[in-house]
């Protein structure tokens, strides 16, 4: 069967691409659009390393077909920083050393941003539950949780 021709908006830019039915959104982002910030960890929706926003909703891009995003809006880790200016979450992850190997980091940042957009002042409990779908095998989570709390405080100050 012919490939699907898909038009979508990725990080604010109109994009078009061709994909096979079985290609996931993660495959398309990484292999076709060369947006390799989203990572493949488990490819089964357990680890959250491929987290992206789809029409404003946090999802695992490994669990979305590329052809499903036709006409939809996708935001990835590449859209987080504005030019050279890091997003407060990125800055706080650096300051708190909330990463080691870094594979899980893009997913945590995208998921963290989604949390702070709806919950500007989350409790530790809320942060831990919201981020329960993002696995990190290096840091032990405490620094990540601290970084998200600190970024929330910074963002509340505007």
């Amino acid at each position, binding site marked *: 069967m012919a490939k699907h021709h898909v038009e979508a908006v990725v990080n604010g830019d109109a994009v078009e691409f061709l994909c096979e039915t079985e290609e996931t959104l993660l495959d398309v982002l990484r292999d076709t659009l060369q947006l390799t910030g989203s990572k493949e960890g488990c490819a089964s*929706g*357990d680890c959250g390393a491929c987290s992206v926003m789809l029409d404003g909703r946090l999802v695992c891009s*490994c669990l979305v077909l590329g052809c499903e995003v*036709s006409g939809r809006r996708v935001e990835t880790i590449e859209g987080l920083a504005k030019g050279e200016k890091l997003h407060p979450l990125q800055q706080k992850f650096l300051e708190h050393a909330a990463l080691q190997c870094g594979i899980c980091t893009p997913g945590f940042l995208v*998921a963290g941003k*989604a949390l702070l957009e709806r919950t500007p002042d989350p409790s530790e409990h809320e942060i831990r*539950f919201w981020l*329960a*779908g993002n696995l990190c095998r290096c840091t032990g989570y405490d620094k990540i949780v601290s970084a998200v709390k600190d970024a929330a405080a910074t963002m509340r100050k505007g």
Partner: protein
Amino acid sequence: MRYEAPDSIEGAVALLSAATGETRVLAGGTDLLVQMRADVVDPDLIVDIKKIAETRAITEEKGGWRIGAAVTGAELKEHPRLKSVWPGVIEAANLIGSTQVQGRATLGGNLCNGSPAADSVPALIAAGALATLAGPQGRRDLPVEDVMLGPRKLALRKGEIVVSFLLPPRPPRSSDAYLRFIPRTEMDIAVVGAGVSLTLDGAGTITAARVGLGAVAARVLLVAEAAQAIIGSRLDLPAQQRLEAAARAACRPIDDKRGTIEFRTDVAAVLTRRAALIALDRARTS
């Protein structure tokens, strides 16, 4: 592998009816894509039902609530009124996976994936929910407990899809609850799941009840004997004991690494009692 995303029920039914090879309906995809990746399924045709407005809507209908088969867990949680009327159904749906999975996972998918351990199904059965199906011969309603026949086996005919669920009107002093046991604190597959829905009279006596039990048999069970054990009572200790005994008697679980027959049976009794107590407490204050 062909992918179609029709914008009408008739279109989806026509595609599925005409297909000759293996077909799969795509709602949230949180099970289907994993199974495709693992080569458990290799469909010739995927029919994405999310462009059909009816599958994506939550609407009031004759005093009850109709929930589209492709409404996500996150959308259920954010609905301003559903949670106060059907807290058990919503908490069950919200137990499926992570925040990311909640952004995609649906009630229709959870049922049609055909797992006896599906979290939302015991709660839907306890709620007395009807599944509205559409197929080549038209529409029909099936009680949710009659949709699943066994692991991966559904009562759906060729070309038939689940369009939506109807939660019945709620009398005053009614509520529900769902509890499950998993070996860790979050994001795992139920070893046992128990849903209880009940209605009280003005004096606090249970006048109606339904009990759904998951992961203790080849399909999710409606346990009428457990409901009978507490109807007419105020869920005092003897009623709780009768409830536990009835739940235990209904269990026909498998023995596997996730839980032995004895363990699943014991936990089913405990969770059923606890879910009933939560539902009772909620019904008193509803």
